[in-house]
């Protein structure tokens, strides 16, 4: 599979995850979000950027539990809870946010 | 607990580390190339005999036979068939395979 953004083609796997994470950019993210019916707000970008930083540092997409805890530590307890994250990404912060962030599906995410 | 070694003692250090780690009262089962340690004349035989002081030693008969080594099994080694292998696994709560 593939998606097209600004005339450039990006490979995705059969579930729509970007094949080459280094190809990611904000326009790609916007299209991936659109496909997920997610309307990107500042709060969404905050989580996406956090996920990308986490991946750069640890080379994994964190499990939801880990993401929730780490976000709470960095952005405050009002954001470090699953209710907040699921409101932003109804189909799961792990699955949906990782896809928009151009990361692989979190290890252990079914 | 049960320890399983499947590598030749002259190829890998699995047997050495296993014997040094295993606590008294445990069992050691030799399978596949691990059975060479249980044969007379092998450089590891002394080590294995010494280990009999704190571990019960077993070897899988089919693996010794397949290697033509069943005629020189070290004294004190208990031979088991596949049924015996299963019994050992079920008799012990945990098992570490020294792969």
């Amino acid at each position, binding site marked *: 599979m593939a998606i097209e953004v600004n005339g450039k083609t990006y490979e995705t796997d059969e579930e729509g995850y970007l094949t080459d994470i280094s190809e990611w950019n904000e326009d790609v993210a916007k299209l991936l979000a659109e496909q997920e019916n997610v309307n990107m707000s500042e709060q969404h970008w905050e989580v996406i950027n956090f996920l990308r930083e986490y991946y750069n*540092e*640890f*080379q*994994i997409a*964190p*499990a939801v*539990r*880990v993401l929730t*805890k*780490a976000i709470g530590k960095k952005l405050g307890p009002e954001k470090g809870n699953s209710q907040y994250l699921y409101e932003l990404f109804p189909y799961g912060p792990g699955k949906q946010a990782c896809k928009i962030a151009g990361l692989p599906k979190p*290890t*252990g995410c079914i | *607990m049960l320890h399983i070694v499947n590598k030749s003692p002259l190829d890998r*250090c*699995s047997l050495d*580390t296993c014997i*040094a*780690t*295993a*606590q008294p009262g*445990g069992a050691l089962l030799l399978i596949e190339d691990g059975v060479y340690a249980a044969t007379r004349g092998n450089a590891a035989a002394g080590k294995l005999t010494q280990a009999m002081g704190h571990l019960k030693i077993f070897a899988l008969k089919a693996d010794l036979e397949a290697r033509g080594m069943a005629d020189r099994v070290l004294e004190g080694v208990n031979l088991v068939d596949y049924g015996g292998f299963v019994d050992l696994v079920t008799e012990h*709560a*945990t*098992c*570490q*395979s*020294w*792969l």
Partner: protein
Amino acid sequence: MSEGQIKKFMYVNRKAPHGTVYALESLEVVLIAAAFDQDVSLAFMDDGVYQLKKGFNTKGLEVKNFQPTYRALDDYDVNKLYVEKEALEARGLTEDDMVVPVEVLSRTEIGKLMETQDVVLSF
């Protein structure tokens, strides 16, 4: 697994990092199984201690560098990492060479801990 049934899991890692897939596989199993909230510990013995030798640079191999992921283990509440003293010595390594905080134990001490586990997973 339901609550109140916390079991002790020990992962025993004995293989060098890139020669076989054991190290990476073990790490992935640890991360996946962390979702079950069990009492997890990792033991690094024999060549397994090389998995934690800091400074992996896998660019030349063109494979993913999974070493940074060991630093994420703490986020997954996996913080009992035991390293075999004899294995470090035999390889000219010290605790300072390890990429994450570890507890250095003798083989005998690791063997005693192994006896207290509900489940031992061998890699």
